[in-house]
């Protein structure tokens, strides 16, 4: 009979009490493990957020923002300069072109002033056989009327035929029938991979991604609304300047505006626009959000701060991370509290057991047991309870941790949602303003942000990782050992004479 076997036996001397203790311990330990899982899940999420969201910088030629239209264009040589800057994980250069419909023979307007200011030189860079799927609407026509120098051909007013904005467009256009024909130019972006200018993947719904990036490539991706408007399917042909392009895929960028666009291989776009090795925007991905500011200034000095403007994305992610950080600390406190509770339960029950067995401890000492072997026996006995509580607790945790994480994150995302929402809404507004199409952001931003927040929760994986489990059990065993050590030390204080008490 070894000390361990004796301890296991002693742990079950009072089966009802031991069972109750194991259940209480299991609840405390299960809670502790859930908190640990939540803590790690949130920590992982923060790390991945820092490395995936809000960590991109946009590089534009100096002066191009705000509609000044000045500066020297960026070149492909700048791409390699940027990619050698520290903390830069990838660089993506794109070239934006505006293509007008060849048949409307719209004049090339000067870059619009004021709030319609565009990011790059917005002069039309060519013509296409495609017809824009977006109706100019009131604002588009007004902008065009203000800035256009020519006022020749009569507008067919409600050209806009169909479309959601037709009513207002038709009404206003009708009253300004003398306005010149204006069709919204089609945005063409030269890309060198499968991501767009904002370094987000292009969502192809039909066909295949671009794979021929040669200057002579005839491949193009067409936005879904533009494709519908022009009855294009995968394999259809259209022209840009004099080159016949083939639709290799249809993409969906989410909004009607963004789907009124095409993507071309970068070098083909440069050739078509006669702007060799020129790029209009460079998106730089930084390895972590923590390094964004340092990299921003490093990039500016590497590329020449008078030549380029380096801008960071909106700071909405920081607030999300901040609130996730509070979830992380809450769950850490919860873990510590639950582990402390488990330790306290072990401590109290073992103190009770020691008091109950004073006389037996006296017997053991009277027949020659050392303080150490008695102490070890009681530590083992406590560990038996803790191990059983941990096993049951781990099962409880694996069942409950998903909902605990969900509850923790969703209650805490309430405030975040609003912040993230305003950020998102701002971004949307900024993009629309930059496009020169005017129009205020829809007041549906709150709902969109809520969807974003719940998506965030969805991506927090809460399966019990073995590392988490081992870490949790080790932490609890440590506390249990401490909780058992104090009673074990109490056994050392029991004098052998106790054996004669009550005789």
């Amino acid at each position, binding site marked *: *009979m*070894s000390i361990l076997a004796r301890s296991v036996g002693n742990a079950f001397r009072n089966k009802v009490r031991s069972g109750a203790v194991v259940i209480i311990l299991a609840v405390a330990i299960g809670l502790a493990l859930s908190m640990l899982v939540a803590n790690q899940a949130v920590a992982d999420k923060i790390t991945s957020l820092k490395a995936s969201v809000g960590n991109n910088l946009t590089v534009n030629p100096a002066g191009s923002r705000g509609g000044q239209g000045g500066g020297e264009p960026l070149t492909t040589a700048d791409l390699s300069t940027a990619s050698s800057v520290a903390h830069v994980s990838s660089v993506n250069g794109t070239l934006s072109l505006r293509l007008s419909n060849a048949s409307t023979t719209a004049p090339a307007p000067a870059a619009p002033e004021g709030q319609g200011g565009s990011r790059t030189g917005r002069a039309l860079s060519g013509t296409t056989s495609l017809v824009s799927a977006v109706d100019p609407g009131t604002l588009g026509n007004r902008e065009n009327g203000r800035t256009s120098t020519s006022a020749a051909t009569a507008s067919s007013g409600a050209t806009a035929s169909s479309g959601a904005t037709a009513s207002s467009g038709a009404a206003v256009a009708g009253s300004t029938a003398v306005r010149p024909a204006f069709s919204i130019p089609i945005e063409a972006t030269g890309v060198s991979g499968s991501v767009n200018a904002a370094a987000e993947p292009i969502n192809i719904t039909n066909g295949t991604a671009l794979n021929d990036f040669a200057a002579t490539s005839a491949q193009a991706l067409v936005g879904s609304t533009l494709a519908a408007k022009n009855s294009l399917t995968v394999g259809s042909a259209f022209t840009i300047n004099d080159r016949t392009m083939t639709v290799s895929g249809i993409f969906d960028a989410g909004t009607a505006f963004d789907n009124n666009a095409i993507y071309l291989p970068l070098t083909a776009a440069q050739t078509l626009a006669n702007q060799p090795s020129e790029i209009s925007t460079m998106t730089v991905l930084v390895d972590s959000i923590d390094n964004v500011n340092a990299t921003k200034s490093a990039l500016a000095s590497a590329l020449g701060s008078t030549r380029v403007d380096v801008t960071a994305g909106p700071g909405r992610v920081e607030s999300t991370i901040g609130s996730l950080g509070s979830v992380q600390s809450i769950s850490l406190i919860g873990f510590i509290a639950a582990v402390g509770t488990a330790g306290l339960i072990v401590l109290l029950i073992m103190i009770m057991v020691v008091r109950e067995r004073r006389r037996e401890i006296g017997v053991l000492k009277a027949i020659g047991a050392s303080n150490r072997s008695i102490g070890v026996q009681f530590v083992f006995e406590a560990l038996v309870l803790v191990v059983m509580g941990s096993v049951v607790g781990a099962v409880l945790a694996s069942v409950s941790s998903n909902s605990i994480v969900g509850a923790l994150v969703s209650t805490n995302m309430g405030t975040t949602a609003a912040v993230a929402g305003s950020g998102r809404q701002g971004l949307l507004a900024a993009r629309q303003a930059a496009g020169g199409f005017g129009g205020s952001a829809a007041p549906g931003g709150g709902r969109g942000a809520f969807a974003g927040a719940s998506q965030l929760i969805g991506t927090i994986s809460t399966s019990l990782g073995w590392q988490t489990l081992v870490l949790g059990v080790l932490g609890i065993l440590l506390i249990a050992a401490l909780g058992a050590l104090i009673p074990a030390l109490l056994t050392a204080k029991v004098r052998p004479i106790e054996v*004669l008490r009550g005789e």
Partner: protein
Amino acid sequence: MLEVKDVVKSFKTDDHTIKPVNGVSFSLEQGTFAAILGKSGSGKSTLLSLLGALDKATSGDVLVDGVNISALPDSKLTAYRRDDIGFVFQQYNLIPNLSAKENVMLPMEFAGLPRAKRSVRAAQLLNQVELTEDMHNRKANKLSGGQQQRVSIARALANNPKLILADEPTGNLDDETGELIIELLRSLCHEKNTTILVVTHDQALARKTDRRFRLARGKISEITHH
């Protein structure tokens, strides 16, 4: 050889000090079967606890084979209790959830004897105290009083002690069983040359011992007449 020299034990209670053992001296040759008689509360258990190093004397010396245990540090006292002393209690004091054999194996475990040897020796000892084989693996709390006392004597013998201290070993047993237990102790004493000191207030049982002492008012005196 057990020598007790002017041993005093005093307890401080709320307002006064009592001395149940107040200047006790005697000595016993190795292999003596001796009895201490005395009224309840006369200090018999207290004296036994001092001899067995369960408690420390206020003053005086206890020498076992010339070694003064009153001067030993705690760690040596543990070894003394384990190797040199065997205790037999009125309440048997077995570990209730262990079997008879496991109880006998315990002191050998503390002495570091390998498990296989412990098992063999425990079985031998249980046979020696005449506990039948079918009882060896029975839980201690499922044995009768007499059987438990036999197990407790086997446990006391486990590490071949020089001295066995028995505090009213027959106190909870009927006369017949008590007589058997005393017989057993007596035969062990002579077979193994172990010194056995039995505390009892049963005159009839005390008559079977080699020497008898009376403890009264803190002093000990040998009973010479029969």
